């Protein structure tokens, strides 16, 4: 049985995420997420992207 057809996965009702999750929890989830997003991207990613770009140029 695919995941899409599991009977236990009934739709709990209409509503936007803000209605499904209390404010305090939604705020903290977003804060946790944006805290990581605000971190500087490590140099290893810059090196990887440069490597890919150089590879593209060379091909």
């Amino acid at each position, binding site marked *: 049985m695919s995941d899409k057809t599991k009977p236990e996965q009934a739709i709990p009702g209409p509503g936007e995420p803000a209605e499904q999750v209390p404010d*305090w929890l939604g705020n903290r*989830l977003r804060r*946790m*997420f944006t805290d990581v997003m605000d971190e500087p991207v*490590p140099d290893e990613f810059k090196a990887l992207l440069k490597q*890919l*770009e150089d590879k593209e140029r060379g091909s």
Partner: protein
Amino acid sequence: MVANDPFLDQVTALLPALRAFGRSLCGDPARADDLVQDTVLKAWTNRIQFQSGSNLKAWLFTILRNCYYSELRHRKFEVEDPEGICAAQLSVAPVHDARLHLRDLNRALQELPHDQREALVLVCATGLSYEEAADVCQVAVGTIKSRIARARDRLVELLGEDAAMVTDPASSESSVGSVSLASARARVS
């Protein structure tokens, strides 16, 4: 960090979101960055498959998620637990006789089954719509809503009675500090 390739430019712009999503999935910054690197490489290799104009963020999240579950499958103790049932049971064991005094949301998130955690994070933290999250997880929209509801209930249980009362200084303008547990529970039920 700007690349000249338009595709890489867009991927670069999404790196922070990918890192945050990866960290929310596995709870480990170093492991999350490894997942993001794998994701970037796979996205680059398969960039022809990406349809210009479609949602690159959702596409990358899908790849990252697949990388994560692929890695989990290589961990023997996770192999036979695709629904996170065993993991959930294991995580409950330490708190069977007392409420877990978790104030750290990240730690509490890691207590959730994988499918619930990703649904909650995708919709409530990354800002994807229910439909986009359903595409990423390859399930129906109703499944995403159901998983979010279960995740929410479990987090409320894990975080304890004072969770809704703790003031978040970064969002003092919001109702975070003023929501009582009773009202929070009323809203989530």
